[in-house]
């Protein structure tokens, strides 16, 4: 029997996954306690921030390892449509096609950055895309940790208190964004859904604190434009994060006016310039978004009951962590530095926007709720870390030595206390993907043979530029596992010319219009049709045998699996040599 290997190349046969995952949890707790012990034993508070940051990095590493190591395939495959779409898109970009086009041939899309980066990281080798998907969550998590810390440290003075606070902000942003009960909620675990499933969205989170730092430092036209440039990078990574961040900047300016700050005009000019520059640079993207994605059309899918529990779910599901985050955001805003005010405004804006969803839901526009929820959690986690540390500092401030002075190691002691009290809530301490993560469970199972074998055939036996028509449900697997483009896929939004594509496809399937078929070859380079015994939704009357009887379709793969029969036809055009 062939051994089952994970993407690291280790044999998974006989591995006790439960023990492995429990080991990472216990190891993380032990590490956190050891870190706290080191802090209390240290001679002074220097390096406290580094210890906290190291715990954050190792925590993310252990949770990532616990999730990825037992999997024989890419996390999220065999279960998540989004993940398979992304994999398919990255595959076709790695094959050398434009990152501006999805795996639906010639279909314009508005998120080109991630597939391009993925393809680049794979060296434009489609066989390495799986590995990039495997490692990207780890890299993004560590990048998030360091970007939050960098923004915080560079924006504030370099005191021990601030550097340690920066480390807690980073730790919280990464490991406090989820709570143990999240798995049972509608939006599930924000850490897994953002870092593991959609690391492209995590890239938006990585860039957001850097955009805040750029704006905090802006003071001249050049630096304002630079802030706009950094902000537009957020947009290319994930446009929703850019919009949410811009909303946070609006709150930042509004708060400056409400609190009658003397520098409010500067805040306004800097923000307007940065957002304006961002909009100018990102305008092609926005055009693509408007053209390619009908996001202004209301839908019953995005309607919410007036009695929805959403308003409470965002803030209150975190319990005391929400309170800590409110305290952290409040004290950060009051402390004065601009970076603190910008970041705290983001916290407030995230929660205000979340409260808008029930209203948007009344008109069928409560779309992308999950992304707003995760954004809310990101800022809540970030400031929960800060809030805990500030409270611990307040507590240690009450202790005085014999001379009535604060203890010299108060920052280290406060950091140690914060670590211990936060430990039970840090994700690596309770993360159990076997029970909490449906995508982990799905990816643990082997790919069904009726997907695995035909898609392997495609990789090995069809040209790299082959385009498939036919089964639109199967289409995403053609891209994700077969690394080939398709004409239409149910898993993607419909291209603008979807009606014409359907006409062309119909002509090929029924062999009734050579002109349309020829257009299919010319415009879309259609070469193959894949159909299964489940039938085609666009031509339910056609059986596999009907298709095989057509002169323009030549079966090149035909296999009966226990679940279904899968047939791949090569399309013959009129002028093809017979």
């Amino acid at each position, binding site marked *: 029997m062939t051994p089952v290997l994970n993407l690291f190349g280790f044999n998974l046969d006989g591995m006790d996954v*439960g023990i492995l*995952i*429990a080991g990472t*949890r*216990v190891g*993380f*707790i*032990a590490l956190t*306690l050891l870190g*706290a012990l080191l802090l209390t034993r240290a001679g002074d508070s220097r390096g406290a921030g580094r210890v906290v940051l190291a715990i954050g990095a190792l925590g993310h590493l252990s949770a990532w390892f616990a999730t990825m190591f037992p999997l024989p395939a890419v996390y999220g495959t065999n279960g998540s449509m989004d993940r398979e779409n992304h994999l398919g898109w990255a595959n076709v970009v790695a094959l050398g096609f434009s990152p501006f086009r999805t795996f639906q041939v010639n279909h314009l899309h508005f998120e080109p950055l991630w597939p391009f980066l993925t393809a680049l990281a794979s060296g434009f080798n489609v066989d390495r895309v799986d590995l990039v998907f495997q490692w990207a969550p780890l890299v993004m998590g560590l990048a998030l940790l360091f970007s939050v810390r960098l923004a915080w440290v560079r924006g504030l003075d370099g005191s021990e208190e601030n550097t340690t606070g920066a480390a807690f902000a980073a730790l919280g942003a990464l490991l406090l964004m989820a*709570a*143990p*009960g*999240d*798995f*049972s*909620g509608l939006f599930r675990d924000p850490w897994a859904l953002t870092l593991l499933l959609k690391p492209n969205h995590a890239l938006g989170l990585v860039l957001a604190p850097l955009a805040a730092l750029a704006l905090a430092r802006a003071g001249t036209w050049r630096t304002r434009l630079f802030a706009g440039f950094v902000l537009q990078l957020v947009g290319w990574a994930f446009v929703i994060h850019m919009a949410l961040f811009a909303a946070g900047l609006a709150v930042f300016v509004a708060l400056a006016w409400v609190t009658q700050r003397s520098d409010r005009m500067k805040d306004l000019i800097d923000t307007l310039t940065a957002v304006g520059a961002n909009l100018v640079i990102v305008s092609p993207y926005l055009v693509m978004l408007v053209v390619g994605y009908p996001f202004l059309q209301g839908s019953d899918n995005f309607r919410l*009951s007036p*009695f*929805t*529990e959403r308003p*409470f779910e965002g*803030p*209150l*599901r*975190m*319990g*005391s*962590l*929400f*309170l800590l985050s409110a*305290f952290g955001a409040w004290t950060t805003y009051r402390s004065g530095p601009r970076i603190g005010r910008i970041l705290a405004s983001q916290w407030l804006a995230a929660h205000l926007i979340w409260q808008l969803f029930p209203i948007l839901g009344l008109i069928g526009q409560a779309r992308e709720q999950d992304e707003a929820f995760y954004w809310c959690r990101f800022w809540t986690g970030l400031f929960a870390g800060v809030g805990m540390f500030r*409270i611990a500092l*307040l*507590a240690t401030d*009450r202790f005085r030595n014999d001379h009535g002075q604060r203890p010299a190691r108060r920052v280290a002691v406060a950091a140690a*206390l914060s670590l*211990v*009290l936060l*430990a*039970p*809530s840090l994700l690596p*301490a*309770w993360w*159990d993907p*076997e*029970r*909490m993560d449906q995508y982990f469970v799905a990816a643990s199972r082997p790919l069904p043979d009726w997907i695995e074998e035909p898609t392997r055939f495609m990789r090995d036996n069809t040209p790299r530029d082959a385009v498939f028509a036919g089964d639109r449900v199967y289409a995403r697997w053609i891209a994700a596992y077969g690394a080939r483009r398709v004409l239409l896929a149910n898993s993607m939004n419909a291209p603008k010319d979807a009606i014409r594509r359907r006409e062309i496809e119909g002509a090929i399937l029924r062999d009734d219009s050579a002109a349309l078929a020829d257009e299919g070859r010319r415009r879309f380079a259609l070469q193959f049709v894949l159909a299964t015994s489940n039938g085609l939704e666009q031509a339910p009357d056609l059986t596999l045998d009907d298709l095989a009887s057509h002169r323009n379709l030549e079966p090149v793969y035909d296999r009966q699996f226990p679940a279904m029969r899968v047939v791949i036809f090569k399309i013959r055009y009129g002028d093809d040599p017979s």
Partner: protein
Amino acid sequence: MIGLLSDFRGIASQEASIPALRACLVLFAIFAAIAWTRRRPLLALLVLSTGGLVGLGYWLIQIVSPLGLGTDPALTLVWAQAGVSALAAPRGSGFVWGTPAQLSLVSTLASVGAPLDFVHVVPQMAAFMTLVVVMLTPFAFSRNRTTAAFAASLALGGGVWPGVAPYGSILLRPSALLVGGGLVGILWMAWQMRPARRALTRFRITAVVVLTAGAALDRALAGGVEPSVAGGLLFAGLTLVLASPVRAMLRVASSSAAGARRAEALTLLCVFLGSGLAWWNPARSIADFGEARSDNVALLRAMDWIRGSVPKSSVVLASPAYSASIAALAGRRVLVPPPTVGDAPRTALPEPFRRLRLVESVRLGHPIERLADAFSVTHLVLGPGEPNPEIGLESPTDEPRMKLVLVYEDVRDFRVFRLAKK
């Protein structure tokens, strides 16, 4: 009353009513917060505890059959033993013939004469009692009633750490409440002694650190979506310990007494609504919950018949799939252990070959009289889809045989045969 409960159960079992429950809990929390800001801490606690009872009750009234029977290996054995301890004779025997009785809270209650219907709701009562214990414990340790009310209000929603409410784990391991209650009692007795009280107060921070580490490690080791019983109770206890320092911090951070009260009220609101109880959904977090929502009327009808018609001292022969149900719901001992027992106890059963021989002779329609008498087996139970014994075959003549007489049959294909002398 039963009809009303049934109506509530019908409403609660609908997914659409969950937001209504949560809206209700939000209202309770808001009223409690208002009461707290108006210097009515006990009223606030009363309102929150009512909310807690509503939140727990919503889920617990949906449990209509023993939680975990047939789905959780450990609980299946507990329920099977409880049924036999309550209804079979002799009461002290194990539910599988020839094995010793297994000790647990519910089987002990059953063996001392508690009605079986009462025994079946012990987990639900334990969960309710946990809420009551958590609510009352601070008053035993603190002379300041406001601080005690604050501690109780924080803990009853699930504590200051989100997602670690102990109710789910207590539901699965109700006996642990006795251990937890016993520990609280010992601590209370120590608290009455001044030196011990001083020591506990002096080392409070160390105790918090050690207990937090212990609770986190316990949770990490156990894994799963619900904390283990020990972890859940430790977190609740820690919340009680931390309540006083939290109040002190809120006073330090606030500019006035009224501000401190508002901060306390906000804390109560957020912790109650975020710590677990308000978002608890055992239908997703407890694997056996869905099964326990179904009363399985078809099975119960057959089990009721067995309970009323098969002598208490009888041993029933059934396939492993129905052994636990017969023991738990009909209260009769069985010859064959349920499959959840696993291989090890099965091989440890006394006289495995004679058991097997009897089973085989019954399958062939001619039970061996000597073995049936030795094991006290009087009835054979077959479930839906299980084939009837091959009654038509000629009886062997090697030793005295019995015959099988069909005494019960229903539309769901449950059948009971009596082993009768020829």
